[in-house]
């Protein structure tokens, strides 16, 4: 069956044997968008976080069929070249170690900051609590989100 998926502003016709294929595999293996990672496949780690109509969702828990008609953004669509304030902040803080979890962390942070442009430290902790980084970059993730919120304000002014 062929589904029509709107990803990063482009509509793709995707032929799938199984329309219940989790979106993460459709992105990675049918569309070559391997920036979206996966670890647990159970909705528990956040590695596969993308935006669905602007909200952070876990692409391992949404089927391709369910995503039809929605506006999807993946890490590849957050900016062309790493200039989104969250990506900038991530580089300035040198957050990444292995980098596997980071697209998910960044997508989580970006959705959060677009809803809550002036977060408190506690808001940031709460927002990032469900994304696992096994390399232990959590302290820098929290700093980078705070920095991104400042950068975002500067860009808006």
């Amino acid at each position, binding site marked *: 069956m062929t589904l029509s998926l709107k990803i990063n502003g482009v509509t793709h016709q995707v032929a799938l044997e199984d329309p219940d294929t989790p979106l993460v595999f459709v992105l990675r293996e049918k569309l070559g968008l391997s920036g979206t990672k996966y670890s647990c496949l159970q909705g528990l780690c956040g590695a596969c976080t993308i935006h669905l109509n602007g909200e952070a969702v876990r692409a391992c828990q949404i089927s391709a069929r369910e995503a039809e008609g929605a506006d999807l953004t993946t890490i*590849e669509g957050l900016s062309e070249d790493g200039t989104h304030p969250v*990506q900038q902040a991530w580089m300035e803080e040198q957050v990444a170690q292995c980098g596997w979890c980071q697209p998910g962390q960044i997508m989580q942070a970006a959705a959060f900051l677009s809803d809550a442009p002036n977060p408190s430290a506690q808001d940031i902790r709460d927002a990032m609590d469900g994304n696992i980084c096994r390399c232990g970059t959590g302290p820098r993730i929290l700093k980078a989100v705070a920095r991104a919120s400042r950068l975002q304000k500067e860009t808006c002014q």
Partner: protein
Amino acid sequence: MTHIRKRLSRRSFLALTGTATIAVGVGATVYSLQAETPVTGAEINAFVAITPDGEIEFVCPALDLGQGAPVALAMILAEEGGASLSQVRILPAPRDAARYGNPDFGGRMVTADSKTTLGYWSILRHAGAEVRLALIATAARQNNWRIDDCHAQDHQVYHGPSGKSVSFKDVASGGRLRLPGADGADLKATKDFSLLGTSPESPDAVAIVTGRKKFGADMRAEGTHVAVLRRSTHLGGTVTSVNDSRAKEIAGVTHIHQLEDASAIAVVATDSWAAIKGAKALEVTWNSPTEYSSKIERTALESALVTPPTDPVILRASVVADQPIAPASTFYAPSLTHVLPEPLNATVEGNSLGLGATVTSATQSLDLDMRYTAQTWKTAPFMINNKATPVGGAYGRRVFNDTVREAAEIAKAIGQPVQVIRPQLDEMQRGQVRPAAAQRIVAELDDSGNLAYWRHEIASDGTLATHLPSSLKGEQGTEDNTATDGAYHPYRCSQQDVRWIRDRALPLPGFLRGVSVGYTVWAIETTIERLARKSSQCPLEWRLRHIDDPRLATVLHQVANMVRWGEPGRNLGLATMEFRGARVATVAEVIDRNVTALWIAVDAGQVIHRKQLLGQIEGGAVWGLSMALHEGLRFRNGAADITSLADYPMISNGQLPEIKIELVEEPNRSPAGAGEIGIPATIAAICNAMEVATGDTYDALPLEA
């Protein structure tokens, strides 16, 4: 001119031509012999070449695991070479242990055990000095300068008297390089370092934040199938019978292959989801599980301390007379699982004529991958071509990278290239574990409050002992340093007995950041702190009085200043250790049973990449927090007691306390290993602070009264 170095492959070539089996497949993979170094420029030594454009090509022996080793090694080379880091291109070294093996790793090509910077420091300084001297000598010849009047910096050779300079590009494109070599006297003085100690942006920083960095699991060539294995949830499961008709009906499933040892059934498909669904759809009857449980394991380990099942490995033995003995304290550390971010993966493709195979894996060791593949493929090691991909989290799990074995067996059986992907849950249930350990310490102070007697026994399985017994150390060749690391405490004591007892466990042992040092230092430092407090001595002063190493004393003083040690009314716990050349002192503060802050002072010797070093220490501290407070892989009825990631608690981003780190730096020191040093003292300091806060004693991790 393209120059391709072929040392090992030349040897292989000669070996092969004897049997006249060199072939280049048409329409198949070109048969590639081993060890082509990918340099295009003029070689200066095994690690470095320079292109006519002046670009330095660095053949990097370390794999990209995310700990930043390739960049750190490139910085060492650039510093000594007078090169700009931005003009150093990092190329992965081929599998050629003779040239690229880590001297601190028995000459093997393994990226692990906090030994990368440590092991290659001297070699790469030397290699860098050769680059600098080659460029200076060549520039001097080209310009009629005296060599002694020249120096190299920022990719330029400067001539002092004339004030002129030429770029590396000018030199490299101006004709043959002179290669005068270098020796120890040619190395830069550490006070002249300008790159080491800074924090240049990683070359893949943009690729990571834009999702363009490709890891092993992101790369699968056209036509390569994917395999997912179905294993029993219980340990040691073997297949009794299987009905694969439902799996075969799934669109995309192409093959079903039962592993030769009947430990798993692989479902091969054209895409990951079909393989995962197929593995799930298999109807398998397994042999029966054992009774094994964490309780049984703990009892066995504790009784091994009393009645060793194997000859104890004596680490220290200076006990001259039996002392009136204080009661023993016991310490139990559970099995731990890695929770790897990127699923384990390996691709194996048979070469044309079926002579050998090409392996591509997210790995920590090309050498060991080669062994696994050669054994499984039943061929000679030089017939195996190995490649490593960037890795999404390794932590020791990808050293004994058994996934390549599965990929080799399946690829050979189905006669097609295949990538095995091991889902995280299967790895957590049936993969390698940091083995559990039981310890017992008896220690006594004399009348002046000094350490008079120390007896420390450790019982655990050994990861090296299980997988690579040829690497065991010690006088008898029986010491598994991954089970004894950390046991060599720094305190003066005339009567000591320290021993390790191997007790085999049912789960397969594996390395994990801070394998044994995570719990040996916990047991030691908790005991020390209890001794000091019980005898009304300040734990900081007690330590300072008992150590000989001035560098350790410095970090202790430093952390005491950071935390304002001695302020009344605070629940502070201290811990210290030396590990892989690094000195660490950590203080934890506990308020209402919560860890609210960590202060860490570290002397890691020469700092290479500052932010990476701090990130390694901080990341280690996060693991330490998680191990101290949350982690433990429990077994019940012969199986890991988990059905999802939620059953394995770990610290989360929102629970992190404040972590403050300060570095102690002095000139003329080698860099220390950094990958694991954040973990052990963190665990011990937290335990000590909890004991101060609650008045309880803790004898098990995660901390429980």
